[in-house]
């Protein structure tokens, strides 16, 4: 069993435990934070090494250029959120769709088909949002277009049905080497999305279907003796990211956070994601 499957299996066991034992929604923020700090952020904290270790990687002439480009993208994203939350969200969604889809198809297909990567990622995010749409509406109330949507006529089954139908039609219309297992895995994800709240759903998906498999692939690429040694290498930038988030929170303006901590966390994630996507795009080329 390869590392990607093992990681996803760990997530599946955790997801079933949460569903069966009925985790109180008040704990979902804790689960989210633990997953983000222990797996989510660390999987992107070795980008500065990944960018130079892989012969297929994007070429940077020096570390300095790498950092300048990387940090500029982060700053650009924050400015975008401040100027226009709608655009910030749109950019986040587009790059996330591509990035999540790209890692999701590993093991089922090559990552060469960019449209497939995007469509699969879009399906996953769509389902995550549709199956938790009321919660999402509460978080994104700063977007007037979204806040005024009246969804009272639709029940949760409708949204599940829509996401499954779109997934089915997406899967059959693409050339995928292992179509059925990919469909089956995403079906389980949808069930988890339906039965858990937004934060738990996101933590489970992001942690165990995306970040942990990538972290394990990075560990393999590094060829270090033990996982702990590799994990320690992720710590400096993980800690820096947390400090960055904390400072941003301290010096926020109203638009960035207002009283919505979850939205703020999403802004941080999107800022860290933007440059990470470009590095990972090269990293997964031969996976």
């Amino acid at each position, binding site marked *: 069993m390869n590392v990607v499957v093992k990681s996803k299996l760990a997530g599946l066991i955790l997801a*079933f435990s949460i*569903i*069966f*034992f*009925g985790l109180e929604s008040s704990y979902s923020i804790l689960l989210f934070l633990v997953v983000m700090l222990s797996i989510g952020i660390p999987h992107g904290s070795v980008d500065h090494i990944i960018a130079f270790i892989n012969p297929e990687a994007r070429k940077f002439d020096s570390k300095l250029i790498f950092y300048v480009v990387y940090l500029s993208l982060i700053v650009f994203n924050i400015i975008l959120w401040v100027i226009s939350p709608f655009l910030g969200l749109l950019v986040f969604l587009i790059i996330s769709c591509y990035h999540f889809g790209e890692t999701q198809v590993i093991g089922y297909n090559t990552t060469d088909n960019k449209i497939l990567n995007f469509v699969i990622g879009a399906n996953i995010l769509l389902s995550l949002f549709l199956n938790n749409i009321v919660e999402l509406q509460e978080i994104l109330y700063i977007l007037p277009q979204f806040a005024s949507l009246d969804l009272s*006529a*639709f*029940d*949760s*089954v*409708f949204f*599940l*049905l829509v996401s*499954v*139908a779109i997934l*089915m*039609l997406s*899967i*059959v*219309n693409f050339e995928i080497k*292992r*179509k*059925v*297992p990919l*469909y*089956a895995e995403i*079906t*389980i994800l*949808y*069930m988890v999305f*339906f*039965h858990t709240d937004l934060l738990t759903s996101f933590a489970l998906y992001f942690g165990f279907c995306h970040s942990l498999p990538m972290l394990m692939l990075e560990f393999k690429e590094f060829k270090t003796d033990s996982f702990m040694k590799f994990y320690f290498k992720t710590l400096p930038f993980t800690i820096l990211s947390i400090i960055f988030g904390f400072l941003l929170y301290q010096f926020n303006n109203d638009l960035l956070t207002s009283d919505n901590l979850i939205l703020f966390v999403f802004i941080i994630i999107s800022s860290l994601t933007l440059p990470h996507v470009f590095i990972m795009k090269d990293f997964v080329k031969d996976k």
Partner: protein
Amino acid sequence: MEMLNFIFDAASIAPGDFTGFTFFIGSVSMLAATVWFLMQHGQVDKKFKDSMLVAALITGIAAVHYFYMREQWVLDGSSPTELRYIDWILTVPLMVVEFALLTGVGMRKLFWASVVMLVAGYFGESGVTGMLDAQTWGAISGLAYFWMAYEVGCLSIFGGPSGAVGNALASGSGKIPEAGRMLQWFVLVGWAIYPIGYMAGTDGWYTFVAIDEGAMNIIYNVGDAINKIGFGMAVWYAAKS
């Protein structure tokens, strides 16, 4: 604790509550079938591994939902229609996928047919669109079901024509034709309980088949268990050869 209750708490079902008991049996049998299919996954030929995994997924997903359904039934005695739909939305496409896995053809048509069947069925039962009546949506859903039945070769049981999937099943190697025949019977007879439930549960001129809610749930529970576990067993039958 909830999980432990789920396994040991059959006593909490009121004496004489046969419907509640079938929910319990449904959840436990689906769970047992999941374990069985996963164990068999390691024993079968490589080309059938995905089929066994999908069989385990179907019963696994159903086990989770039967656990919820049983809880709802025991707590307030209401019919868990919403949970059933969630279960069906997730598992019906997976059952359809088994045909594609065994034959390597027809996934596109079968997926389209099941999307139409599920969406039209839901629109009819929920009335969410505000367009057309339940009977019309039911008829559309039924047509998609018959299209699917034709594609997988159900009519060939009686010497009738068959779609590409049915033909591929008939000309398959090993025990695939025999397993295919079992699957065709499941689709033709086993799946017929779903439109019956739809008709019985929908207002309109279908009320002539109205059945007591408890009895309807028993039919669904027994039918679901036979269909889902049976489907997997038929696939396993083909795989073990």
